[in-house]
């Protein structure tokens, strides 16, 4: 796969059929619209390094209420445009006098974008599985362009983070990440996410983060493990080595929360 850092106005191709997202066509040639990485698959698209989150239909987002009306909650979804959650999109019937009791100002929720019209009026919904009000945990904010890095190839990064820290994680498309778990685990996890954002343009990132977390975890009892981590570059090998050879390590997954383990197992089987 061909990767290159491009700047706005850079010529990408002479074939107008190659024009993907983040590009424009002028006089039969394709140019970049953005500062980012050009990605050549069947079409050439440019993935920007930065930029505001622009809502689109069916995105999952995390929003914060900043205003309530008699029939709508207005959510800040980290974009130039506000999101509206109408009472009818709440799973139960709500009297207009009860609005503040369901969602008060400052409350957060995992939402899905139901519709976006041409004037960028954003309609949100809470009537789907997995969508709910957020109670407890922490909210992190990262640039929305880095969200694919946090999720990783096939969700590898998120499942790795979950496995290593035992925290619940939800990544919204708007760059807001909700995490929940033990305080010290959340500290570690936010550090790891910071690291992902800082080094998002490098590759081999999942392995690097995984090593970072494992080294942190085992700073006191890990001579055996650290050696393994340093000598083996392939992540797969590292994990195998440890699971089979290192008794100390194999105890660790036991501590991980039962539910997230189940989820991970499900994920693994689905992937295979």
């Amino acid at each position, binding site marked *: 796969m061909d990767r290159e850092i491009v700047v706005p106005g850079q010529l990408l191709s002479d074939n107008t059929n190659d024009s993907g997202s983040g590009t424009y066509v002028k006089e039969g040639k394709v140019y970049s619209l953005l500062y980012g990485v050009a990605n050549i698959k069947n079409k050439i698209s440019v993935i920007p390094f930065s930029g505001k989150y622009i809502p689109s239909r069916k995105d999952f987002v995390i929003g914060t209420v900043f205003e309530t009306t008699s029939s709508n909650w207005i959510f800040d979804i980290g974009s130039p445009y506000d999101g509206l959650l109408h009472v009818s999109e709440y799973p139960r019937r709500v009297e207009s006098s009860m609005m503040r009791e369901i969602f008060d100002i400052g409350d957060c929720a995992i939402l899905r974008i139901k519709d976006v019209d041409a004037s960028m009026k954003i309609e949100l919904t809470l009537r789907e*599985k997995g969508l709910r009000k957020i109670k407890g945990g922490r909210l992190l904010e990262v640039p929305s362009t880095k969200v694919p890095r946090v999720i990783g190839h096939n969700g590898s990064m*998120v499942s790795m983070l979950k496995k290593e820290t035992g925290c619940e994680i939800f990544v919204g498309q708007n760059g807001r990440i909700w995490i929940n778990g033990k305080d010290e685990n959340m500290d570690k996890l936010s550090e790891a996410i910071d690291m992902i954002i800082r080094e998002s343009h490098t590759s081999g990132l999942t392995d690097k983060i995984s090593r970072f977390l494992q080294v942190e975890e085992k700073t006191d009892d890990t001579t055996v493990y650290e050696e393994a981590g340093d000598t083996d570059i392939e992540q797969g090998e590292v994990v195998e080595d440890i699971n089979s050879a290192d008794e100390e390590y194999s105890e660790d997954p036991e501590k991980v929360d039962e539910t997230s383990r189940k989820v991970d197992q499900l994920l693994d089987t689905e992937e295979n």
Partner: protein
Amino acid sequence: MANKPEKFIDENGLRLDGRAVDEIRPMTIEIGVLSRADGSCYLEWGKNKILAAVYGPRELHPRRMQKPDEAIVRYRYNMAAFSVEDRARPGPSRRSIEISKVSRDAFAPIIMTKYYPSAVIDVFAEVLQADAGTRTAAINAASIALADAGIPMKGLISACAVGKVDGQLVLDLNKDEDNYGNADLPIAMTQDGEISLLQMDGNLTKEEFKKALEMATEGCRQILEIQKEALKKKFASHEEVVESLVEVAEEKAEDIQNEIELIEEDFETSEFEDEEGIEVIVVKTDISEPADETSGEDFTEFTEGEGSKTDETEDPEAEKVGERYEQ
């Protein structure tokens, strides 16, 4: 303050600061210098020092200023009180309001405002130190800051000035040349040479003007190269770190050799080719949902938290499906 020099160009054809008549001043660009801005750039051009910041696209208030079909661009050119030898009176002046207006218009041909209806893109260009040609320097810096903010643009804008001293055309005036010269012609253009800003102070003949335009085009082309290089360098720093470490190693001999090897090893594994940046994941919470319902959509998602029993709307039997789509 220096008085008017007797001659601006010496017998060797060199100018007061030793440049040739068609040579621009050295330019250095730093990107992403402000953490709270969406895009920023610090630019030094000769003795000019400019800080540019871009915020947005963001919500525009008051609402009556919003355009329902496109974003508006606001550009603020401001000279710091300490930027010139005699203290400049702070706040907008006739001059800075005019420069803000023409600079904003200079970006009109490239910024894709249609992508962000009723929003605003704010550009701030602060002159920290002035030495002639600040409006062109500010435009060059703002252009980089806009790119850094991830604003979709058809290209970059580059700007430079041509002037006349001692009856001869010179590229990129410095302060003395500007103060005592006969003409000043700042020009901004797109990469295709489409002029988006042109002002003139002083007098030029028709022939001189044509020549000046050619010189400015060449100057802008050089500046565009500097801008592109600066943008491409920002994320290439990985390579440089490794290289500079190797240099240190040669000087200090063997004691840190092991460390270097480790770093190089890391570097080898981090070529710019993995797939994570563009893969898209969907984990749906309902297994019975038809899979193709979401295919072809550009979205990335990952849900979790089915395990928590706190939510009354939740179905404890729900299963998760990991699916992968390509954008």
